[in-house]
C-alpha cells in the first residue's frame, strides 16, 4: 500500500488523501463557524452537521480507489489485511467499551471516535504485517 511502496497508484492515493483531508478541515471550519454565528435550525442544521462527515467517508472511497488501481497484488493484499485488522480492532474495542458502558461507569464513547479508532488499528497493523512478510 501507499506507505510501503512508491508507485503511481500510491502517489495518487496520497494526493487524493491530502485533498480529502483539506476538504474535511474546510467543511469543519464552515460547519462550526455557521453553528456559532448563525445558530441554524431545521434541514440546514442537519445538512451542516453532516457536511464534515462527507469527506471523512470520502477517505474510505480514496482507499477503495487505491485498492482498485494498485497493480501490485501483494501490496493490495497488505492493504486489505490492514483494513481487516482495522475493522476487527474497531469492533473489538467498541464492543468491549459498549459492555463496560452498560455494566460499569465508564465515559461514553462518542461515535465520532469510531473512525479514528479504525485508522489507529489500520496504522498499527501495517508495520506488523510488513515484518511478517519481510
Amino acid at each position: 500500500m501507499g506507505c510501503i511502496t512508491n508507485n503511481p497508484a500510491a502517489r495518487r492515493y496520497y494526493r487524493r488523501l491530502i485533498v480529502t483531508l483539506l476538504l474535511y478541515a474546510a467543511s469543519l471550519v464552515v460547519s462550526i463557524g455557521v453553528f456559532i454565528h448563525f445558530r441554524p435550525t431545521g434541514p440546514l442544521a442537519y445538512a451542516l452537521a453532516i457536511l464534515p462527515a462527507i469527506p471523512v467517508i470520502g477517505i474510505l472511497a480514496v482507499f477503495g480507489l487505491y485498492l482498485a488501481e494498485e497493480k501490485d497484488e501483494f501490496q493490495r493484499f497488505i492493504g486489505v489485511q490492514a483494513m481487516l485488522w482495522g475493522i476487527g480492532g474497531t469492533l473489538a474495542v467498541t464492543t468491549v467499551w459498549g459492555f463496560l458502558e452498560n455494566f460499569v461507569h465508564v465515559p461514553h464513547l462518542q461515535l465520532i471516535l469510531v473512525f479514528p479508532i479504525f485508522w489507529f488499528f489500520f496504522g498499527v497493523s501495517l508495520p506488523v504485517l510488513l515484518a511478517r512478510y519481510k
Partner: protein
Amino acid sequence: MKNRLRVLRAEREWSQADLAGRLEVSRQSVNAIETGKYDPSLPLAFKLARVFETTIEAIFSDEK
C-alpha cells in the same frame, strides 16, 4: 508453496529489484513470493513463467 525463484534469479544474475521491475511489482512482493510467505495469483504466476521463459510447474511446487 515451494519455489525456485532464488535459483532462477541467480542463474540470470538478477536481483530481487531486477525481477520486480520485469514483473512490474514491488521488491517486497518478489521477496514475499520467493520466501514462500505469499502465494502469487495465477496471472502473476504466468507472468513469472514468461519472464523466466519456463512453465509455472518448473517454478512452483506444492510440496510442503
